[in-house]
């Protein structure tokens, strides 16, 4: 096992453990921190996939913006995290069984599947930029519009004025 592989395994473990923490802790704040951990792991995995740009994006946007926003939300509204009532064992069991079933089903599907042969080419950031401005320009613009709408929507929704 070379270094790359062991680092890969480490990243994988971090990712999964972070994900586990993000759902398992009862305290909301810990959940958010675990999510950050998990996202770091995913960013690392992206590097292994030769998607350095994406890894950077993951860190900047996901961790730097999204997670932080969640943490801010948690901290700004303190009583909210208290409202996580204890989970009932039956509900936990139900969730676990469902998730396990889905996992089993998916894994069976994936392990039995045969995939098409890829080109083996390594992607380039330049390609991504080109694609975003040529073939994918329409969805790209649509996403920008969605973002704009979301920002405006969020502002409208969270503005403190009283509604009738």
């Amino acid at each position, binding site marked *: 096992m070379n270094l790359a592989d062991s680092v890969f395994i480490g990243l994988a473990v971090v990712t999964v453990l972070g994900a586990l923490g993000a*759902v398992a802790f009862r305290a909301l704040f810990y959940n958010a921190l675990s999510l950050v951990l*998990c996202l770091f792991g995913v960013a690392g995995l992206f590097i292994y996939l030769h998607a350095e740009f994406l890894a950077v994006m993951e860190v900047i*946007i*996901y961790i730097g913006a999204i997670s932080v926003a969640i943490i801010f939300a948690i901290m700004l509204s303190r009583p909210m995290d208290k409202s996580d009532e204890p989970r009932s064992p039956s509900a936990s069991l139900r*969730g676990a069984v469902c*998730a396990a079933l889905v996992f089993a089903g998916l894994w069976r599907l994936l392990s039995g599947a045969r995939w098409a042969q890829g080109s083996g080419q390594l992607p380039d950031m330049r390609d991504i930029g080109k694609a975003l401005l040529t073939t994918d320009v329409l969805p790209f613009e649509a996403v920008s519009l969605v973002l704009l709408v979301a920002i405006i929507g*969020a502002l409208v*929704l969270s503005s403190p004025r009283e509604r009738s």
Partner: protein
Amino acid sequence: MSATLQPYLLISTLLLCLGLYGVLTRRNLIAVLISLELILNSASLNFVAFGRFHMADPSAGQVFAIFIIALAAAEVCVALSLILLLFRQRRSVDPASMDQLKG
């Protein structure tokens, strides 16, 4: 080991299922939102992995992942404000209590 698809698929499936577990069991909407982020991440991981190994156009998977990240940002931003609004109005963010449509 990192040069095949299988480990990535395993990780993303695990992320997905943990996310599902969270969505199904958590009784706080922010926690549910966190779980959703896990699911989204599993999806983008899948996209990138498939793009790396099994796709003619190497950039396609990454472009998708970029879109996912952007949409996730939008989603979180709206969802958080909705949750805050809901909390302000009902003093509860328990998804189990949201059953007003029940006959």
